[in-house]
C-alpha cells in the first residue's frame, strides 16, 4: 500500500511520459545542469522510483565514494517519505535496499570493458541483475563518443535503461535544438534529455527532447530546500 502511494505520486509521470520507465529498453537519458544544481538528486529520485516499482538499479558513480552515494539515497528517500507522510519507512527502505547496487570508479580508471567485467561478476553469480543503470560523473566532451557508443551497445544488449549526468559549463550556450554543447557529440544516442535550470529561486526541469509528448510541455520544479521534485506543475510557454 505504502509503495503504491509513493509510485502513484511520482511527479515525473506528470511530464507526460507514457510509462514510468520514461526510457525505452536500451535507451539513454541525460540530466544536464551546471555543477551543484541537483543532477544527482534528480537521478537518485528516478532510481528510487524505479526501486519502488521493484526494479533493480545499478548506480555507477565516478565522483563519490559508496558511502556518499548511499547517503544520497537514504536522505532523499527520507525526505520523500516525510513529504508524502509515509510511516514505517524503515521497513520499506530495507525492502528496497537489495534492489540497488552501487559501483564507484575513479574517473581515470573507468572504462566500458571494466564496467562490463564488474557487471558480469555480479550477474553471473546471480547477485544482481539491473534493469536500470545510472552513470554519474562521466565526462562529456569531444572524446566521449566512443565511450558512449560502447555503453549503448552494452545497454542494448542487456536490455537496460541508462541515465547519465551531464555537467554543463556556465559559458556554454545551447545550440539551435536547445541542446547544450557537451551532449552534442552523442546527441543521436539519447532518447530523453532533461535540463535543470535555475529560474529565480526555483529550479526548473525542462525536457529538451519532446519526442511524442504533446505540447505545451509541462515543466517540473525541483525544490532547492529538499531537492525533491515538487508536485505542482507549471506549463512552459
Amino acid at each position, binding site marked *: 500500500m505504502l509503495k503504491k502511494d509513493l509510485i502513484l505520486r511520482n511527479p515525473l509521470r506528470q511530464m507526460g511520459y507514457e510509462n514510468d520507465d520514461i526510457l525505452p529498453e536500451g535507451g539513454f537519458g541525460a540530466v544536464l545542469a551546471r555543477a551543484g544544481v541537483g543532477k544527482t538528486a534528480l537521478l537518485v529520485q528516478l532510481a528510487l522510483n524505479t526501486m519502488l516499482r521493484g526494479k533493480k538499479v545499478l548506480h555507477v558513480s565516478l565522483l563519490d565514494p*559508496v558511502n556518499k552515494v548511499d547517503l544520497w539515497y537514504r536522505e532523499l528517500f527520507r525526505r520523500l517519505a516525510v513529504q508524502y507522510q509515509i510511516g514505517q519507512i524503515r521497513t520499506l527502505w530495507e525492502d528496497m*535496499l537489495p534492489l540497488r547496487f552501487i*559501483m564507484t570508479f575513479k574517473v581515470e580508471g573507468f572504462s566500458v570493458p571494466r564496467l562490463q567485467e*564488474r557487471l558480469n*561478476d555480479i550477474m553471473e553469480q546471480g*547477485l544482481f541483475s539491473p534493469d536500470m543503470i545510472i552513470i554519474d560523473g562521466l565526462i562529456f566532451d569531444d572524446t566521449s563518443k566512443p565511450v558512449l557508443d560502447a555503453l549503448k551497445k552494452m545497454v542494448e544488449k542487456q536490455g537496460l535503461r541508462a541515465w547519465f549526468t551531464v555537467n554543463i559549463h556556465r559559458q556554454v550556450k545551447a545550440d539551435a535544438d536547445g541542446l547544450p554543447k557537451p551532449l552534442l557529440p552523442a546527441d543521436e544516442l539519447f532518447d530523453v534529455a532533461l535540463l535543470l535550470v535555475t529560474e529565480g529561486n526555483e529550479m526548473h526541469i525542462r525536457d529538451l527532447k519532446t519526442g511524442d509528448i504533446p505540447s505545451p510541455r509541462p515543466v517540473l520544479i525541483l525544490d532547492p530546500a529538499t531537492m525533491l521534485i515538487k508536485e505542482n506543475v507549471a506549463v512552459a510557454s
Partner: protein
Amino acid sequence: MKRDLTRIRNIGISAHIDSGKTTLTERILFYTKRIHAIHEVKGKDGVGATMDSMELEKERGITIASAATYCEWSGHEVNIIDTPGHVDFTIEVERSLRVLDGAVLVLCSVGGVQSQSITVDQQMKRYHVPCIAFINKCDRSGANPSRVIEQLRTKLGHNAVALQMPIGLESDFQGIIDLIAMKALYFDGPHGEDIRSEDIPEQLLAEARQKREELIDQASAFSDELTDTILEEKEITTEMIIAALRKGTLERHMTPVIIGSAYKNKGVQLLLNAVAELLPSPEEVKNTALNLDENEAPVTLSSHPEDPIVALAFKLEDGAYGQLTYIRVYQGTIAKGSTIINIRSGKKIKVGRLVRMHADQMEDIEMIQAGYIGALFGIECASGDTFVSPGLNIAMTSMYVPDPVISLAIEPKDNKAQINMSKALQRFTKEDPTFRCHVDAETNETIIEGMGELHLDVYVERMRREYDAEVMTGNPRVAYRETITQRADFNYIHKKQTGGSGQYGRIAGYIEPTAEGDFIFDNQITGGAIPTQYIPACEKGFRQSLAKGPKLEFPITGIKVAINDGAYHAVDSSDMAFQAAARGAFREAYLRAKPVVHEPIMKVVIESPTEFQGAVMGLLNQRRGMIVGAQDEGHMCVVEAQVPLAEMFGFSTVLRSATQGKAQFTMEFALYRQVPQSIAEKIAEDMAAKKKNAA
C-alpha cells in the same frame, strides 16, 4: 620541563607483525640513551625487548597493547606510542592513532607491503596521520627496498619519495647514502652508534645523482622557493629540500622513505633525524573534540598551555602502585594538585602523582602540558575517558557506546582461575567500554559480551596469559532481540484469593511497535481507574517482561506500552498485584502483536585485489550478505556489505583461502534487522534444544 611545542613529536610506530617494529623501538631507545643494553624480541637472555611490557607480548614476540615511552633526540622530545600490528586489535590501534601526531610505517624490505600494512595505512589515512616509511631488514636475504617503494606507490597509493639509497644489500648491506646531503654514511661501533660520513663510492655516484634529481623534482611540487631555485639553476640547500619535504609530508601528499636494518644497527639514527625534521609537532595538528552541550558538535582545541584543560586517557595499566593512566593533554596544563573532571562519570579529581613513562620504568614530573603525553597515578577511570577543567563540557571521543552483539559463556577451570578471572574481567571492562560481563541468573554462567568473535577471543587469551586464569569457553551466541510488528490490546485481571489479604489489579491498554526507543511507557489513565501510586508498579511489571521475550526468551526492544483503563480494590490491590497484572497483560498481548526476532547486522568492508572482487561478493552472498556497493580503486577494490553477525563466524579463514590471503576485512555493528522466517524457525529449534538440555 621544556615548553617549546615545536620540538615535540608524538609518534606511533605502526606496522605489520614481524616487520621488526619492536626491535626498531628498542634501538631507538638505545640511541636516545633511554636504555643501556639491547634485548632482542625473542631474546636468548630471557629479558625481551623493553617495549613489550605484557607477558603475552614477550612470549609471542608481538606487541598487543600500546605502551607509551619518552625519549629525546637532537633537542626534540619524542613520545613513542608502540601501536599493535594486528588487525584484530583495532580499538587499541585507533585509540593510539587518536593520540599521536605522526607515524613511522615500518615495512620489511623482503615482505614488502602486506595486507596488514594496508589496514594500518587505512587507519592512518582515516585519522589524517602524516607518516614516513622505514624499510627495515635491508640485511636480509631477498631484501629489495626499490620494490617496496614501488609497492608503497602502487598498493597503498602513497607518493613515496626515497631520501636514501643502500650501499650494498642483503649480507653485503654496509651503509646508506643520504640523498639530501649526498654523503655515504656507515655505522660503526658495537651497536652502530658511531656514524662515519664519507664520500659516496664512485660506482654508486651516478645512481645517487639521478635519485637525488628525482627527490628534488618531487619535493619541488611543495615549494615555490625550491622550484624557483631549480629554474634559476642556483644552489639547492639542504634546508630548502627538507622544508619542501616537510610540507608535503604534513599534508599527507608525500611519504618520505628511509631505509636501514634495526637488527644490524644501521639507519636508525637517520630515521630519528627524519622524525624530528619531517613529522609534525602538536601545534601543527588540528585536534577536535565534541561539544556535549551542542549535540557532540566538533570543536577545535587550541593546544595552548594556558587554556582550560582537555586530556584523553588512552590506556590503562596495572602497576605495582595501582592503576596507571596514560593521558595525552590536548589543551591546557595538568599539574600536580590541579583539579580535573572526568566527563563520563562527572567525578572531580585532584591530580596527585604525574609520571613520564618509559615502558616499565617511570620518571616523576611536575606537569603535563598541551601536546605532551604522560601518565597519572591512582585515578579511577576507564580508557577513552576525557578529563577537562571544571566548567568545560567536551569530550575527545563520542559518548555513544554500542551495545554488544555477541556473547560467550566462560567458566574458570579451578578456584585460582576463578579469582584471577574476576580480576581480569574487572580490568578489561574498564579498559574497553564495548566489553561487558555478567552472570546469567539462570545458568549461573559468567557471560562475556563484545563486538565480535575476535574481540572476545583476544580477551580470553589475555585472561590466560596476563592473569593466569584458565577458562573454558562455550560457543559464541549472537545477541538476538525480539520486537512486535503490530498493535495488540490487553485487558487483564490479576486476582488471587488464597486466604489472608488477596491480590487484585486490572490493567487495560495496548502495546505497539515504536522506532523511538527500546521502551516507551505511556500512562493515559484518567479518572483514577488505577490510582497514581500504582502506576510505577505497572511500568515496572512491563519492564520486567522485556528482559525475556515470551517467544524465544530474547530481550524485547522497540515497544510502546500504553495503559488507558484498569481497576483496583481498596484492600487487595498492592504494588505486587499491579506488577503481576502488568506481566500478565504483557503476556496476553505479546503473541497477538506478531512478535519477530531481530538479529545484529554488521557492516563488513572488504579490501581485496580487483581480481578477487567476484569471489568476495560470492562469499558475502552465501552468508546472507547484502552488498551495498563496490568501490574500484585501481588495483584494489573495496566491497561494502551488510551481513548478519551469525553468518560471520570463521569468515577470516574463508576469506583468506578465497583470496590467497590478499584480502582483509573490517566489521562493525550496523543495525538490527528482522530474521528471515526460515532462520527464525531454526533459532527457535536451537533454543528449544538448549532448554531441553538445561532441564
